């Protein structure tokens, strides 16, 4: 636990010191989302209809932005060797990295989502379920993203390849998230979709660290 906390603390410190990642993610999220009113023309009704979808898609895309560097720095400066030899198992190293990614992107996106919702004319009743869905969606995005980062560590064209690999895996998550939002909009119960999302999160939480550790073990050579 002490070792896990040390790693988390250092990575958060590095991220915050650089500052760029979290801010760029939020900025991209807002900027790209804000483009849609321009593309569609300012029809409030139409915007309101697609607002939740845009928020969620942009959250998924924005979380791709900072993934690339999740492991690269540690890989290139030899820290990964040290981590592999530490008492911390590689599974926990992977988990710490995923947690860092969520804290540095998922959390800020949650904070920024209402702002984008406002820009896009989201119906007032839509906020609670949108945020709830995002709370469940973003950890899954971070987990899958971490897996992609571990798989492509040291690959040529890392960032884009990674993004391409995990986008198909993002889709079911987005579908479920959207399902929850739409259910509420149509006055149905969102419970089914939310339950599935929770199940998905837990499944990924169990599976992904192991898969990431397997990938990282290949990197150490």
């Amino acid at each position, binding site marked *: 636990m002490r070792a896990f906390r040390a790693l988390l603390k250092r990575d958060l410190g590095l991220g915050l010191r650089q500052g760029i990642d979290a801010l760029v993610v939020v900025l991209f999220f807002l900027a790209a989302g804000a483009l849609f009113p321009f593309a569609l023309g300012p029809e409030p009704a139409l915007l309101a209809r697609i607002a939740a979808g845009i928020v969620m898609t942009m959250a998924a895309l924005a979380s791709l932005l900072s993934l690339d560097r999740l492991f690269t720095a540690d890989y290139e400066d030899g820290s990964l060797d040290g981590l592999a030899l530490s008492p911390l198992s590689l599974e926990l190293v992977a988990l710490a990295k995923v947690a860092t990614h969520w804290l540095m992107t998922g959390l800020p996106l949650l904070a920024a989502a209402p702002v984008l919702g406002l820009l896009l004319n989201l119906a007032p009743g839509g906020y609670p379920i949108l945020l709830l869905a995002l709370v469940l969606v973003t950890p899954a995005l971070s987990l899958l993203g971490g*897996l992609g980062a571990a*798989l*492509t560590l*040291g*690959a*040529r*064209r890392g960032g884009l*390849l990674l993004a*391409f*690999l995990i*986008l*198909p*895996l993002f*889709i*079911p998550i987005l*579908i*479920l998230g*959207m*399902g929850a939002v*739409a259910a509420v909009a149509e006055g149905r119960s969102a419970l089914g*979709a939310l339950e599935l999302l929770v199940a*998905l999160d837990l499944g990924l939480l169990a*599976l992904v660290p192991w*898969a990431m550790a*397997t*990938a990282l073990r*290949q*990197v150490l*050579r």
Partner: protein
Amino acid sequence: MHRFANPGRFLRLANRIQPWLKALTVLGFIIGLYLALWGSPPDYQQGETVRIMYVHVPAAWMALFAYLLVGLASASSLIWRHPLADVAAEAMSPVGAAFTLIALITGSLWGKPMWGTYWVWDARLTSFLLLFFLYLGHMALLGAFDDRARGQRSAAVLAIVGLVNLPVIKFSVDWWNTLHQPASIVRMGGISIDSSMQWPLFAMAITFHLFMLAAVIERMRTLLLEARLRNQRLAAFERVGTQARASE
């Protein structure tokens, strides 16, 4: 040395069965295509375009089947370190991707007369497009590293994770469909199949299986021979290296 014993036996076996397999595949295509193009009646509704089905449906089946095999091969490579499993997965995924592409192209060509458009964001079509992306991701990852073993391991992990994704995509279909009114969906399963169409379809399906087997074995053979060549080249390097060192 047990590393090479197994591939060696595989190569001998492959050399023995490959001619038969190829001959059977050709024969299958002759019979299947004859039945599909001339031996079966046009559909009373769809007319001649129904003949696309004899390529489209088996190709779609093979695409799904091949991905399953890639996933299984990857799992056995990760768990049991079977020396041939990586080669099998690497050989399989381009073949599967090709089947996927064929199904996509024939499907959308069929869609134009049937639905009036080449593409709709129907759940099945989209999940199938994702399958294509998964194949491409697998191939891209295999080639993305300078160290081959590294690419194989990473691709294996991806293939397994993608495997989990397949039923999820299928499952989420319901969720998605109930959301928005689909534009114009023709239920694909809704076409009941007459026995006059059954036989050509079966023939084509069997032939596609044969074809896939032949193609995969051929690619595996190539990959193994390439690996052997690389080894020989490296050994030659090593000899040069030690000579250089000795002469210094």
